[in-house]
């Protein structure tokens, strides 16, 4: 089977995201709002901010990714394109992958690209910068995957955003612990690889299981 249908979906998703650039970049704006407000709230002392920076950046990245989750499948449910996912020879799993990839590219990647700026604003020690970018690179796909599962499960629920946050928070606790652990270790000049390894394991686990769950949850919502 050719990959053409999945590429077509991926490209259409990117095109749609470009048409709604403001909406697509909302997570990024949110991230920077948080990063700018934190020093105003807790005081601009560099040593305090540097201690908080790993946690703050990660929590901001996490909350900002939540913002975009509601639009992951809902527009497709409303205009009927989601039911077309199940028609024809293409596999739903492949389409779920294509959608998650485009979603990560639109919401996850900008956060990673601008994270050095956020790190600078919070006085994160420079030696931790590489590890922070690496932790975001490994961790944000897992955010999309786990968040996608929660979004698919709550797709036809009223007031889905509340339920979505409740569903997603327990699932991503390990992600936050390992990611901020890795960055803090690096900031203190210690070896962060154990944390990064566990973070990678979490992402691999999410990659293996979440797409199946998402495909099943989507079908359930169409019944």
């Amino acid at each position: 089977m050719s990959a053409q249908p999945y590429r077509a979906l991926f490209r259409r998703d990117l095109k749609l995201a470009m048409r709604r650039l403001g909406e697509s970049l909302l997570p990024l704006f949110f991230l920077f709002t948080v990063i700018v407000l934190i020093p105003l709230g807790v005081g601009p002392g560099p040593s305090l901010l540097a201690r908080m920076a790993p946690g703050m950046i990660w929590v901001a990245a996490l909350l900002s990714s939540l913002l975009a989750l509601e639009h992951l499948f809902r527009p497709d449910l409303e205009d009927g394109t989601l039911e077309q996912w199940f028609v024809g020879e293409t596999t739903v799993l492949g389409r779920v992958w294509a959608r998650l990839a485009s979603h990560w590219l639109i919401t996850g990647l900008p956060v990673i690209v601008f994270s050095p700026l956020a790190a600078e604003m919070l006085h994160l020690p420079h030696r931790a910068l590489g590890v922070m970018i690496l932790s975001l690179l490994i961790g944000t796909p897992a955010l999309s995957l786990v968040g996608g599962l929660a979004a698919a499960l709550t797709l036809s629920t009223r007031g889905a955003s509340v339920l979505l946050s409740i569903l997603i928070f327990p699932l991503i606790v390990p992600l936050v612990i390992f990611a901020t652990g890795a960055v803090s270790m690096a900031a203190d000049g210690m070896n962060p690889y154990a944390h990064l390894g566990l973070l990678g394991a979490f992402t691999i686990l999410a990659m293996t299981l979440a797409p199946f769950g998402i495909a099943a949850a989507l079908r359930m919502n169409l019944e």
Partner: protein
Amino acid sequence: MTLLLETEGLEFHRYGAPVFRPLGLRLETGRAIVLTGPNGVGKTTLLRLLAGILKPVSGTLVHHAAHAFVGHLPAVKGDLSCRENLEYEQRLGLPDLALAEALAEVGLAGLGSRPARALSAGQKRRLGMARLLVRRSGCWLLDEPYASLDDAGCRRVDELIARQLEQGGVILATHQRHPHIDPHRIEQIALEFGQEGGVQA
């Protein structure tokens, strides 16, 4: 005549109760199956089942050819132009008609660059029908294809169905208008409410 779609003892349950009696269907090239029946009898459910959107509780469903489904929702993206919507659709399978040709077929000639969100409900349905034309599929599954279309639009749907029957087959659900095509090609299946609330076919 080649077999396009075949079911055997197909069953679907909703809230634990069967929606219709176990159903055996055979669709061959050049044939149209028309599903009729009152609202809520399960026409849409059956079509969605045949399209693969729902999974049957029991029974078998075999597609011998590519199939396409047009439901109540037109499945077009409002932010994309008509042409872009069809372009996406064309990439999903074997391409058939050119985009401009398909748009002309459904009476949307010259509207290719208009965003789909600016179309009326009837025009959106026409665009939904055009999706069928840009991609080659042996079996069309149409759910109320005449809904929100004007007289000319309904006639056009008839023409499209008649042309599709030359190379493939059609299953459609309707409760208002029957396709005005060669009656020998049509097989009608009337779904009706059974005594225990179930449906007979």
